């Protein structure tokens, strides 16, 4: 066995670099079309090394949500299921909470110097 070289930034670093460019990108397996988040080196389950980057639609649904109650202030933590399939941990901005099933739209924000994906409630009757 001769170990191969590993060149350039890995999937986590690539994801972060896209966010810094203002792009919310997720991976998709070329063979199956399965979307993947969080970014990996290989498709989970199949192990296929065929993951490509695609622009996320930004659309999703609140799968679950809780409000963390702290003396320093309350904030929500949500699991949003992207229309593409994967879920991410995030926050619904501008509201204390939202109903499970609410439609939401992603945008990139900055938290303590780090670019992250947060969500807003989708406009009623809008493009979401």
């Amino acid at each position: 066995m001769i170990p191969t070289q590993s060149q350039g930034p890995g999937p986590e670093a690539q994801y972060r670099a896209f966010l810094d460019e203002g792009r919310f990108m997720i991976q998709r397996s070329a063979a199956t079309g399965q979307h993947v988040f969080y970014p990996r080196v290989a498709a989970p389950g199949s192990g296929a090394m065929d993951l490509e980057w695609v622009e996320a639609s930004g659309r999703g649904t609140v799968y679950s949500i809780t409000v963390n109650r702290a003396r320093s202030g309350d904030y929500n933590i949500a699991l949003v299921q992207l229309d593409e399939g994967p879920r991410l941990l995030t926050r619904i901005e501008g509201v204390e909470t939202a109903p499970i099933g609410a439609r939401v739209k992603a945008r990139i924000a900055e938290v303590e110097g780090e670019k992250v994906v947060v969500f807003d409630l989708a406009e009623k009757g809008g493009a979401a």
Partner: protein
Amino acid sequence: MSNMSVRGRTAIVGVGGVGWGEAPGRSAIELLGEAAIAAVKDAGLELKDIDGLCAATSTHAFPTLSVAEYLGIRPTFFDGTNIGGSSFEMHLLQAALALEAGICNAVLICYGSNQRTAGGRLVSMSEPQWHEAPFKPRHPVTAYALAAQRHMHEYGTTREMLADIAVAARQWANKNPSAFARGPLTREDVLNARMISDPLTTRDCCLVTDGGAACVMVRADRAKDLKHKPAYVLGVGGAHSHRSITQMADLTRTVAAESGPRAFQMAGLKPSDCDLVMLYDAFTITTLLFLEDLGFCPKGEGGRFAQDGNIAPGGALAVNTSGGGLSCVHPGMYGLFLILEAVTQIRGQAGERQLDTCDVAICHGNGGVLSSQVTALLGSEAAL
């Protein structure tokens, strides 16, 4: 492939517990050490007889190295598997396999934590999950709150049903002189307690206590000659599904639905054979989920099943007779404490909370954020 070969081949013959509640001035390894010495003595053995060691804590990176050094033992078999609070149920299987293979003759499984005295908060050595960390989830309550919210949404489970689980645990604890939290607790007390993360209040969450626990396992043929009635290991099965709550396929279905059948198959038993049901109650929602996923009630019905005293003293199912993590003891990683209560009940030493019959006990451990599930079935000689 048959997996009946380790059924009943090993038994727990010694148990020890120290500092359940508040143990100021004691470090984690000191509590672990005292519990270990107590368990070895309870087994009628000497420390030099211990040649197998399983350990996992939240404060030791190399747990078996630390414990073996502290106690002055040189094991031929050692396993520091850490999958969270269910590690100890998995250790039962590892120990059974090692004993059966003749790699060792007496295995010590042990744990200790001083997290209450040290800071009053759950301790973890874990790396942060980079894709979650900016949103400041609280480990682990955020994940369990998300699971509870989803279960309420899908199945109409209510906060009142969750509260009844805490009330039942307290009623058992009130029969247990070793329980840390005793005294009256009503449904309203639980509902009106301080909210931690919707929908879970402080009373929906396990205690944060100090505590050391240990047990000793030997092969069955030797067990009969030792001091106490042996608690035979009849079956163990495990599953793990994720690390991050973002990767849990369905927040209302844990892989206890996989670990349970594996354990029952090894033991040749089914849920209705269980006299005692010890379920890892880190939160009221976990008792509910495991009642469902282990087959004690249909999926979605856990809240309705646990209502109105059904799992309390005098109810249809004896669940968490020690008072559980919710009212007896919970020093961070709780899996070994479930096992100790089961052994105590099988031996007939549970005093006021003793079940009339305890031939089969299920000990179900949970780890991480519903991440790992390990089911163990222990039994008396009558269950062999």
